[in-house]
């Protein structure tokens, strides 16, 4: 987790001066996805089917564009992987958390987080994860992942997180 966050920060710095923020975010995410899909040789071994496995090798979160709740292509890739994993390991309940960045009002962002969580849930259900295993909760802008007031932080905070229990 923390390693990935650091990588993210480095990536942001790397691309910051070269490309538009949105493009940078796309690259960054695909880089993360690649890392997760093909763990480097030095990565700590995690038990297949564990929560750590899900987070490291599948990716537990997807990101959204500003004020949007539609799933981007990179999010679909991650969620397809999530669905495969969740179907294989049927012993987990999933709470999908919807989050927003701080650039909206509190009440509206609660609704927006709810809409994002629902979009993730519906995608997973459509991919064959039983609906009974999935719950949603919105945290609006109340639980940012990255503390910062810049595009990089905001793009990391507009997220849907599949939390396993």
């Amino acid at each position: 987790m923390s390693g990935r966050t650091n990588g993210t920060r480095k990536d942001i710095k790397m691309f910051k001066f070269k490309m538009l923020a949105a493009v940078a975010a796309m690259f960054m995410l695909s880089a993360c996805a690649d890392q997760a899909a093909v763990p480097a040789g030095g990565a700590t071994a995690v038990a297949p089917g564990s929560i750590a496995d899900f987070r490291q090798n599948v990716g537990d979160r997807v990101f959204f564009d500003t004020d949007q709740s539609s799933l981007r292509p990179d999010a679909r890739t991650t969620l397809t992987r999530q669905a495969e994993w969740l179907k294989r390991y049927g012993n987990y309940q999933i709470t999908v958390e919807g989050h927003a960045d701080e650039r909206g009002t509190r009440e509206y962002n609660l609704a927006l987080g709810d809409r994002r969580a629902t979009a993730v849930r519906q995608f997973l259900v459509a991919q064959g994860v039983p609906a009974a295993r999935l719950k949603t909760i919105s945290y609006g802008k109340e639980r940012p992942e990255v503390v910062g007031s810049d595009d990089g932080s905001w793009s990391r905070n507009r997220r849907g997180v599949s939390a396993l229990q």
Partner: protein
Amino acid sequence: MPRPTSRFRFLVAACAVAATSVFGIAPARAQLTIDMTRPNFEPVPIAIADFAGSDRVGAEIAQIIRNNLQNSGLFRVIPPAAVIEKNVNANAVPRHADWRGIGASGLVVGQVTATPGGIKVDFRLWDVVVGQQATGLSLNTQSAQWRRVAHIFSDAIYKRVTGEEGYFDTRVAYVSETGPLNRRVKRIALMDQDGANNRYLTDGAGLALTPRFSPTLQEIVYMGYAEGPPRVYLQNVESNRRELLGNFPGMSFAPRFSPDGTKVAMSLSQDGNSSLYEMNVRGRSQRRLTNSPGIDTSPSYSADGTQIVFNSDRGGTQQLYVMGSGGGGEKRISFGDGRYATPVWSPRGDFIAFTKIAGGQFGIGVMRPDGSGERMLASGFLVEGPTWAPNGRVLMFFRQQPNAAGRAGAVSLHAIDITGRFERQVPTPTDASDPAWSPLIPQ
């Protein structure tokens, strides 16, 4: 469940004092009035002497009145050091020329006397320009209630000078914030309008957000995280007893009382779609108010209860809409550049306050209920969530500084008059957001 009215009985006596007739001067009040709706008024210079007759309480009451009036932006309080007459007798006629000499237009004197049941507090406001008493009040109450006495007197002075009702004898509920930004503890807190008597209504175990007062001040509604999805709770502020308001499968949020206190409008979410519902507080019956394929939230009733203004993104971006309070006849009223949110109808009915997001900045503004006459009062990196003082002439909202280097930016409450001229920070013990200003406390 003791109501403040039974605990706190006032004996209000009009102080028609001989002094008025001694000075048989024409009732001119040129200097001791102010028209706060004019953009270029001058604050009224006023001197407030420590109240006589009690060691500590008299001085404290005077200080509260000074703070209240100074903070309103409509008065310039003469520094106590310049108040030349100490321990003036509240029943004697002051030497008006002396007060004019130090630049005062008004003088407030008063005294505290012990009674078998508590204390009796009198005050007078002298118009030293014309040499007449402008107003006065006498209250009998329990000794512990002296702060409220000071607020009630402040309201009387404010009303006499501005012609508007005061707002000092009120409370503010807000969200107290502590801890790092990604693990913030958010609790509902309640305090007097000036920051005194701060206490917490929720324990901080789950996030608690968006407190709103019932018109009697006996209850608040807010959104809280406990088991399952976050929901709207109703809580008694005296007993702290709380209950779920309605039992819906999904999230319920953005509650607000109707002006008569019998209903609460709020958002319910179903399958990612948020719509407005109205809930009868006692009978718990409910009805749906909106049905659009978008987010409908932040409902606020008009002062007469016949209409509701709310926030919706049904047209692609967040805008403000007005409809009948039973639902239907929805009409968009905001058409400026940017996104509009958190509309709140003034208790006077003449304005709707809102948060506006445009050009990467947030702003607090007001418009007429038909959407015309939009005017921005405050702006910044993040300003949000206006709430009206009961006189409809002052707004409170919150301001957040940008987060920097992994550190959360400070969040604080601010008050501003509707000319936008005078903004000040409202002191709170912790970081604070989402204020809700109560109506005047029932006497």
